[in-house]
């Protein structure tokens, strides 16, 4: 089975539109949404949830008030300023367990906490593994790793030949967690100074983890000259430029209808995404 990850650096460049369309075009793919703190792929694929489980990420320190001698050692050692006046600030606690280790009264225990939910769903296009981080929760990278582990399991069971993953914007832990071990990353960018700047940074991260990258310039005709610069920058970073997609109002119309672009439209953007998929599938083969 091949694994393809779609990322972007900059947010809002069209990752989910590309993944939704690829899901419709690939036929036997399994799908995953690794953008756990702003997931959108399920809004295009009409999933029927088959399995749902809570996700416990980092543990949380809990102080037993009766056993606590108010010595203040916990507050002293916590590097995250999460213990104040013998109380644990759940938002700041990273679950490292140092306070529990040093407490001379043994008054601190580490307890698991639910920080999100993971879903395995059926869609018309194949099984989808997705998740949702609870408001204020941490450990997004680990949740992404867990989503991918379940997605691979689900894909194997379904006999899928491709696992297609929608990634997060940025270059931090969720992106790094989603890059580990994929066969290729497709970076969707746009013709603007931010698009190019963020493309360069995300390509550096892909190279750092030795993942081959391909690039697609979305909305290229907003500024053809800057689109050429983006393509040039991709090539000089060693990525292959697989295609470009024009600005097309059919894209936001398809999002509003909640269906993949290539099923909602036969216009210029949909045709460009089909051509992009043909080239991507050949690259993966």
């Amino acid at each position, binding site marked *: 089975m091949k694994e393809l990850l779609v990322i*972007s*650096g*900059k*947010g*809002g*460049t069209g990752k*989910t539109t590309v993944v939704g369309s690829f899901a419709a075009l690939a036929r036997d793919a399994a799908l995953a949404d690794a*953008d756990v*703190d*702003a*997931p*959108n792929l399920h*809004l295009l694929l009409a999933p029927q949830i088959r399995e749902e489980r809570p996700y416990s990420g*980092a*543990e949380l320190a809990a102080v037993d008030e009766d056993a606590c001698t108010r010595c203040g050692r916990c507050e002293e*050692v916590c*590097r*995250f300023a999460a213990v104040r006046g013998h109380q644990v600030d759940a*938002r700041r606690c*990273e*679950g*490292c*367990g*140092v306070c529990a*280790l040093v407490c001379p009264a043994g008054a601190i225990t580490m307890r698991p906490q639910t920080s999100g939910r993971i879903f395995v769903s059926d869609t018309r296009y194949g099984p989808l593994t997705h998740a949702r*981080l609870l*408001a*204020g929760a*941490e450990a*997004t*990278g680990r949740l992404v790793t867990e989503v991918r582990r379940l997605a691979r399991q689900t894909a194997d069971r379904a006999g899928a030949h491709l696992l297609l993953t929608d990634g997060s*914007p*940025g*270059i*931090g*832990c*969720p992106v*790094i967690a989603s890059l580990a071990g994929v066969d290729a990353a497709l970076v969707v960018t*746009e*013709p*603007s*100074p*931010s698009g190019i*700047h*963020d493309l360069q*940074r*995300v390509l*550096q*991260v892909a190279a*750092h*983890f030795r993942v081959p990258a391909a690039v697609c310039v979305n*909305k290229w005709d*907003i*500024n053809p000259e*800057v689109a050429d610069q983006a393509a040039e920058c991709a090539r000089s970073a060693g990525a292959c430029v697989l295609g470009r997609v024009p*600005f097309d109002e059919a894209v*936001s119309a398809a*999002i*509003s209808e*909640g269906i993949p672009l290539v099923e909602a439209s036969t216009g210029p953007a949909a045709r460009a995404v089909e051509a992009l998929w043909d080239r991507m599938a050949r690259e993966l083969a």
Partner: protein
Amino acid sequence: MRIAVASGKGGTGKTTVAIGLALSLPNVQFIDADAEEPNAHLFLHPVVHEAIPVCMTVPEIDSVGCTLCGACAEFCRFNALAVVGGEVLVFPELCHGCGGCVYACPQGAVREKQRQIGEVRIGAVAEMCFIDGRLRPGEPSAVQIVREEIRRARSDRTTIIDAPPGTACAVQEVIAGSDFCLLVTEPTPFGLHDLRMALDLAAELGVPAGVVINRSGPRDSIIEGECQSRGVPVMLRIPLDRRIAEAYSRGETLVGAFPEYAERLRELHRAIHTRAAA
């Protein structure tokens, strides 16, 4: 007064709105807190006076004192240490810098050293104070950098802080401690879904919120309904206009390309002031 500009969904126009606000107001300080993908400098062209390295503390093993007992690796919840083939391997990218391995080692053989993960830059754009942060590509967490940006900020100025997309750690760091959270969204189901997550987060952190609808048009009702049911105001609309996207693609700011927005953004600031004070 500190105003956080956030969004949930990426690419909705946070930086456009944050920069527009900063350029329309007197006596401001701009903080670009998207240290994974900092973009404001591409539009504001600041003069940078100072670049401050941001470091994390990571363990270093004294191989003479180490008995390979594995207590450090067993303690570490982030799997940043492992005993493999007669030595202790350290994986600095997984380390959270908690210092637990130092306490866990019975031989006192774990020391700590500083490792640079990025930098904070301090500068100016004419009269405006400017701060941004840059995470080194390959490093997992920008939270330390965002904390350092906020720590370096001046408290005597109106502060506009441009958040990263999403609702995870670094976004929480930006919204918590702000006086108001301005959420920029777009009238699509994607925009709505992620706006809800961002509104939940602002509510969880107890920060009052308002909404800007970017690429506003006939489908705005999808956002308006949500705002109404939560009692959150829609404070500004920026129409879907290809000319705005084209100006952005050339690296121009909203108020630079369309000066009529300056007064609308000052009005937005007055409304934020009233709401944050209430």
